[in-house]
């Protein structure tokens, strides 16, 4: 049953990713990105990461994607006339080859590393949110604070960048 869900989420997210890159109209691209994000959150559920599932749905789908759609609607973009870059055929071949090689390497490697300190049974007993919270506010507190400062800087930067420029006429009159 889990395998069935995995195949569904994986295939739909890959298809949605390809559609995000390949579709012509920007709004269609944003909507297939929505499908991709929701199915990736389904993969998180299969990996026992419920907290990340909630964060993915709330932050990615609820905030970031809505921001993208808002800007798309605001700018009222026309469809690209010249759709792909002229050198796209030259990029496509090596990209497919490289992807095939990486897939070959991934599928034949065993990935047997040292186990960490959070076994699945313990995480399932207390809940994923509890485990993430304990870990975040003990070992990773500095990163948490840094991300907070980063977000503050991003907010200020976005406001400063997108602020409407002062009209020049008024300044000239004053002079």
């Amino acid at each position: 049953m889990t395998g069935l869900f995995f195949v569904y989420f994986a295939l739909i997210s890959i298809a949605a990713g390809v559609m995000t890159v390949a579709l012509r109209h920007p709004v269609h691209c944003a909507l297939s990105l929505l499908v991709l994000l929701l199915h990736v959150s389904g993969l998180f559920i299969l990996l026992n990461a419920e907290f990340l599932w909630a964060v993915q749905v709330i932050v990615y789908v609820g905030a970031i994607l809505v921001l993208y759609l808002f800007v798309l609607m605001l700018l009222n973009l026309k469809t690209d006339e010249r759709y792909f870059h002229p050198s796209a055929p030259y990029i496509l071949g090596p990209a497919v080859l490289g992807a095939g090689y990486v897939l070959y390497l991934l599928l034949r490697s065993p990935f047997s590393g040292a186990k960490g300190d959070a076994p699945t049974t313990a995480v399932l007993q207390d809940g994923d949110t509890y485990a993430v919270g304990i870990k975040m506010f003990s070992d990773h507190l500095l990163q948490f604070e840094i991300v907070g400062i980063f977000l503050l800087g991003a907010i200020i930067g976005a406001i400063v960048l997108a602020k409407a420029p002062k009209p020049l006429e008024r300044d000239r009159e004053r002079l």
Partner: protein
Amino acid sequence: MIPLSAYTAVSAVLFMTGLLGVLVRRNFIIVLMSVEIMMNAANINLVAFSHYLESMAGQLVALFIIAIAAGEAAVGLAIIIVVFRGKISTNVDEMNLLKW
């Protein structure tokens, strides 16, 4: 039981898709969306390794990546709005304001 390599394979395919989008598309907004695809691929990888190697650190890094993606989207879209105001285009080939 799904093997870990299946998750990494999905992640690799998604990452390649996003990389191809960044290289090939010309609309700046869709280039940013492709960056989001790549970040999601990295997140799948981190969470999968976190689950299979029984450590919480991967999920935390995935959380921080989501926060950084939010900041990146906000600043990138602000830059798009600024450029669009001057040039009425979001084509990456026409963005040469810093060239002299």
